């Protein structure tokens, strides 16, 4: 290890006011891009590249890394406070985070989220530093065959996330997988389930799926619940299931609540560690994608919990697992970008272009000739996360007011901006019609207690599964699953299913949330 370089670069970063200043600017920008549905880190990078054009190598790269590092932390804010996630990973946070807000624990959820994402980001960056020597074999041993099996492993989590009804969860999950098949079929290139519509060739995007399943139903039911003075709590509870207490609890966010959330993170230290490692490892493999990683962290959290039945109803561990997951992956995806010049995510593909523009030549020589840049970027991730958590905790009570905005104010803005996000993401107005259809279905799901998370998992993993299955068969033939890592993954899949069945046979524990 290059310990001397590791520490001297940290020292340099901390003692260069210009760099610190730029990071302090970059962090709120990242939070903004992350918290606005449809913008996201990728677009943030594209739009900021012109600003770094004239910066020197280190300054520009640190600025972009710092911005990109905190995007997901920003994304958790609307997910928790108003149940409107901006992208795939944030939807995992919304499941328990928004449920906590409804129980009057918005501050605790925010604290847990800030804490978990920071620790996740830190552990991810540490993982990045420590794994430098063994990086190459890890990356090179994961082929499409393993991607396929990882996707299947993720799909088995659908059962765990189905809540009370296994069958309903499976139906929704399979429906999500079906929706993932919309578009051009990868083996023949011919359109499938597109009904003659060319804009459907690229399929149903995760953004549309997430906003339709979460933002739209939340807003409609908020409107139905409406003005609390003329609807009795009982009526509200009948319409909204568990939300009965909602109107009566205070949504005020206090520092005490936020620190309670931070304390929760320390109470789940092993969970945080496992999720960080799991996700950084998945993030490091180019081609699988961060959306999948965050959901696998959430699935793991539920599966390994002693009280899986509490999840989705405001369990703080759910927020911690999901947030650790979405933030640890950024560090993971930086690795292949730097050392192979092969980006680990679509955001990193743009980062790669920016590196080249700044004159940083990614490749194996990064480890020998430019190790100082590598460490500077690792530290930039770390410092950005710390700046971010300090800023967010400090402003937490004010941010928290978003959660207590009157429903009639929230609804029109959220609907307009969620629809705007869908438009910006695909660049076509037809996506709005798609949101109308899928969003209405999402409301029916919510209204009649069908789980919605499996749909997102299906949409995210269905494409990966079909794509990698097709490649795996083309490359290795039908016996592709006999490779050593594949066998390990198959064992994990079987263990995951077996564990679920074993648990399902145990006598039911009385739900504790009631």
């Amino acid at each position, binding site marked *: 290890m290059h310990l001397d370089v590791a520490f001297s670069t940290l020292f340099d970063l901390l003692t260069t006011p210009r760099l610190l200043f730029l990071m302090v600017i970059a962090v709120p920008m990242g939070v903004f891009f992350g918290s606005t549905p449809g913008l996201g880190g990728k677009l943030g990078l594209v739009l900021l590249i012109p600003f770094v054009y004239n910066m020197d190598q280190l300054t520009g790269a640190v600025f972009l890394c710092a911005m990109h590092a905190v995007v997901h932390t920003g994304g958790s804010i609307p997910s928790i406070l108003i149940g409107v996630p901006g992208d795939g990973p944030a939807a995992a946070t919304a499941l328990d985070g928004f449920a906590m807000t409804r129980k009057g624990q918005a501050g605790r959820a925010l604290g847990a989220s800030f804490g978990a994402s920071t620790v996740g980001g830190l552990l991810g960056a540490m993982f990045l530093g420590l794994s430098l020597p063994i990086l190459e074999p890890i990356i090179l041993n994961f082929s499409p065959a393993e991607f396929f099996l990882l996707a299947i492993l993720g799909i088995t989590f659908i059962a765990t996330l189905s809540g009370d009804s296994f069958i309903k969860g499976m139906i929704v999950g399979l429906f999500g997988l*079906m929706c993932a098949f919309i578009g051009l079929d990868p083996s*023949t290139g*011919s359109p499938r389930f597109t009904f003659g519509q060319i804009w459907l060739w690229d399929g149903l995007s995760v953004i549309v799926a997430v906003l339709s399943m979460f933002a739209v139903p939340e807003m409609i*039911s908020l*409107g139905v619940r409406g003005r609390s003075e003329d609807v009795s709590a009982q009526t509200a509870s*009948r319409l909204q299931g568990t939300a009965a207490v909602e109107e009566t609890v205070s949504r005020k966010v206090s520092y005490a609540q936020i620190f309670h959330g931070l304390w929760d993170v320390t109470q789940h230290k092993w969970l945080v560690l496992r999720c960080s490692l799991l996700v950084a490892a998945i993030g490091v493999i180019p081609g699988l994608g961060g959306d999948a990683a965050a959901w696998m962290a959430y699935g793991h959290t539920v599966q390994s919990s002693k009280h899986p039945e509490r999840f989705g109803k405001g369990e703080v561990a759910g927020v911690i697992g999901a947030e650790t997951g979405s933030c640890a992956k950024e560090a993971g995806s930086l690795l292949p970008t730097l050392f192979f010049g092969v980006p680990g995510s679509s955001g990193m593909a743009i980062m790669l272009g920016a590196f080249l523009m700044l004159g940083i030549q990614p490749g194996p020589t990064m480890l020998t000739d430019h190790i100082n840049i590598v460490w500077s970027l690792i530290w930039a991730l770390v410092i950005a996360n710390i700046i971010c958590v300090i800023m967010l905790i400090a402003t937490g009570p004010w941010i928290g007011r978003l959660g207590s905005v009157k429903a009639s104010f929230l609804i029109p803005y959220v609907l307009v901006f969620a629809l705007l996000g869908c438009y*910006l993401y695909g660049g076509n107005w037809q996506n709005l019609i798609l949101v109308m259809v899928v969003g*209405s279905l999402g409301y*029916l799901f919510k209204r009649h207690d069908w789980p919605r998370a499996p749909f997102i998992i299906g949409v995210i993993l269905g494409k990966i599964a079909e794509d990698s299955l097709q490649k795996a068969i083309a490359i290795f033939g039908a016996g592709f699953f006999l490779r050593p890592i594949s066998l390990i993954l198959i064992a994990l899949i079987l263990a995951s299913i077996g564990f679920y069945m074993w648990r399902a046979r145990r006598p039911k524990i009385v739900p504790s949330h009631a």
Partner: protein
Amino acid sequence: MLEGRLLVSGIMLVVFAAAVGLSFTYAPEARFLPLVIGIPGLLLSAIQFVAELRDRHPAPVVTREEHHREGRMFAWFLGFVGALVLFGFLYAGPALVAAYLYFSGREKWYVALAGAAFAWTVLYGVFDWFLGLPLFDGLVFQYVFG
């Protein structure tokens, strides 16, 4: 009204049946996974549908008032999508905010106007002007102005 529970499993049943049916029209490579997923989906939704059909538990009573609220909210949602598709974000966005605040939120007219002004400022100022992301103009304006 049709019992809500049945509505959802009924929709799922129809969707899976249609998807499986459509799959048979595709080339063998293209229909393989859709069938692997679709057929179990069809079976499960059939099971769920039948289970709910035979479910003798009384369905939760939904009052007329609640139905009205749901209908109104759905109408707003469809109205939002429709107006944005027809008139674009810069015009329909602020107008929708104002309309919702005034009619559904029963705010004073100047509050509604201020809300619309804020929406316009963000849509135009942040997205169009600062970030340089052109927003959708709406089908009507595209048709009229090319």
